[in-house]
């Protein structure tokens, strides 16, 4: 029965293959050319864009969004779409970091990362072991994190203990370059290594490509999903530490637009939203792109609305284009 259907489909598939020459590829090239042109024009035309301090600001923003996006990449590659609560996790871990500074800087960093890892692992565990929907669980988890954070802090913002200044090193430049950038590159390299060279990483790719095949092959899919979310949570916690150190004022307001920026960065890099294909290197490019666009729009004085709109258009165009290119 299946064979009959397949042979009946064969000519159709040939037609489809012939028609799939490279219109989407050409379209993509055109879009990339237009966007590059706009960026160059914008960079040349916007006063204050091509200054050392602004480039540093872009790189810092890239790093903070990028570290979270690296974690998001693991989730996406594993075939679990994306998380809608990393912004809240970043805010919560930043607050935890600032609170734990009362003990010691090292403890505070560890606490921020560990809390993020735990928050991620719990969500991943529910998604993986109970087969729950990623989007629903992460929306619910976002609300729970907000509620718990408000409860524990009584709605007050958390500031570092008076007299403590050790944390400021995390927000200061090192050899003239913002510290977050070193962290970002270290995270990106480690994550790329983990995804490409370790058994865990390769199994994530396989699971994202074809979950039922992965399951049939005996891969621990539930555990892998938990691992992907835990990795994302740890990355977000690390970003939270840096965000907390930079703001020195921990509250839910730190959530900002990290959730959508991280999703946009991961998608813009060209990672397959359905999973199985993608890389951290792509995400690094995506994060740089999103941070540059945000900075450019901000410098040119565009309103919040335009900034959100532009990010939305970028997400929509990228989702459509990457899908066209993939073909069916």
């Amino acid at each position, binding site marked *: 029965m299946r064979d009959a259907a397949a042979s009946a489909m064969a000519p159709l598939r040939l037609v489809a293959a012939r028609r799939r020459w490279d219109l989407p590829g050409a379209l993509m090239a055109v879009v990339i050319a237009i966007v590059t042109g706009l960026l160059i024009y914008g960079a040349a035309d916007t006063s204050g864009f091509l200054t050392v301090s602004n480039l540093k600001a872009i790189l810092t923003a890239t790093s903070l969004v990028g570290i979270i996006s690296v974690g998001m990449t693991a989730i996406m590659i594993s075939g679990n779409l994306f998380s809608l609560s990393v912004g809240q996790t970043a805010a919560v871990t930043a607050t935890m970091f600032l609170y734990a500074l009362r003990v010691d800087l090292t403890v505070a960093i560890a606490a921020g990362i560990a809390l993020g890892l735990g928050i991620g692992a719990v969500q991943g565990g529910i998604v993986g072991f109970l087969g729950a929907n990623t989007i629903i669980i992460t929306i*619910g988890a976002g609300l729970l994190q907000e509620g718990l954070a408000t409860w524990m802090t009584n709605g007050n913002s958390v500031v570092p203990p008076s007299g403590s200044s050790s944390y400021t090193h995390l927000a200061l430049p090192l050899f003239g370059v913002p510290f977050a950038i070193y962290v970002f590159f270290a995270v990106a390299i480690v994550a790329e290594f983990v995804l490409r060279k370790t058994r865990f990483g390769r199994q994530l790719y396989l699971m994202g490509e074809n979950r039922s095949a992965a399951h049939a092959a005996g891969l621990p899919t539930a555990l892998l999903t938990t691992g992907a979310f835990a990795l994302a949570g740890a990355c977000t916690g690390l970003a939270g530490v840096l965000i907390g150190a930079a703001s020195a004022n921990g509250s839910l307001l730190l959530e900002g637009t990290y959730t959508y920026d991280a999703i946009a960065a991961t998608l813009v890099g060209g990672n397959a939203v359905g999973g199985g294909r993608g890389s951290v290197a792509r995400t690094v490019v995506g994060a740089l792109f999103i941070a540059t666009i945000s900075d450019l729009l901000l410098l040119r004085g565009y309103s919040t609305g335009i900034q959100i709109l532009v990010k939305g258009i970028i997400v929509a165009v990228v989702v459509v284009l990457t899908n066209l290119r993939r073909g069916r």
Partner: protein
Amino acid sequence: MKLAGPLRAAIRRVSAPYAILILMVAVLAVLPAVSHYSVTATNVYDVLQNFASLGLVALALGTTMIAGEFDLSVTSMYLLGAMVAVLTGAPSPVAGVLLALAVALGVGLIQGGVIAGLRLNSMPVTLGGYLILLGTTYILGHNQTVTYANYSVGLRLDQPILSIFSIRSFVSIGIFAVAALVMAYTRVGRDIHAIGGDRRASRIAGVRVARVVIGVFVASALMTALAGALLGYSLSTASPTIAVNQLTFAATAALLGGVSLAGGRGSPLGIAAGVLTLSIIQELLGILGAASYVQSLVTGGVLVAVASVQGLPAALARMRSLTAWRRPAAPPSSTAADA
């Protein structure tokens, strides 16, 4: 005797949302008797007003879920509907609503068209849609809260009728009734269930899947925009930043109402029960004077719990299949040869 098990399970599955609702109504009714808190007609009115504000959003999201899709853009469609109506509806409130619906029609056609035409996953597409509509709402309102000069419209819409209803809640109830009839008795309703249950099978069976998907997204946008527009009149304001928790509420209500995330299961009546249940829970928290974060904790907790429980049977089945080789061999079947 053989049927009793599955039948009982089916009844339990169908009636669970109503059982929870009845329980919540009972709690609301018994509360004054066992404590010093009083429950009045105003509380019932509040619950129905919440039903009026968020019920249609839950119905919109729930309908896309029944069709096996997910419309993440409902939150910003809601805000955009309110913004369009408030900005343009001062001379004629009806015209404002119609304009909001016209915008929604366009949004639904584009989102549904892209998703159905390119067979894309609706989550990333509607995420892009969410951001685009939110940005548009900000731009239309010049990043500010916009006020609606025609206060009388809102008062009229919210004026209590029979002390617990209002025009706004009647509108929601009416649309729920129509949706229930459409889903239960028309071909469209069966098609929506069918494409949510098994898209390939329904395509082969002759369901025009693309049309149904587009229709579902249009319906979602229209219902959300209508609820948003009426809320805008009711509050006499529209803003791009009012509570972003509509999506959480809508998803929780739909799941509580027995809509399956896997698609193919659920009904407007169930969704209505879910909305009322969640509204009563919120009202109870209000009566008890709970802090606002408790609302977040309860809603988030219910959402995670319901979503987890829903995946449980499938997860258990998977685990069973993993350990199947340990059990005595089943009689030889053709499926084993296929694999």
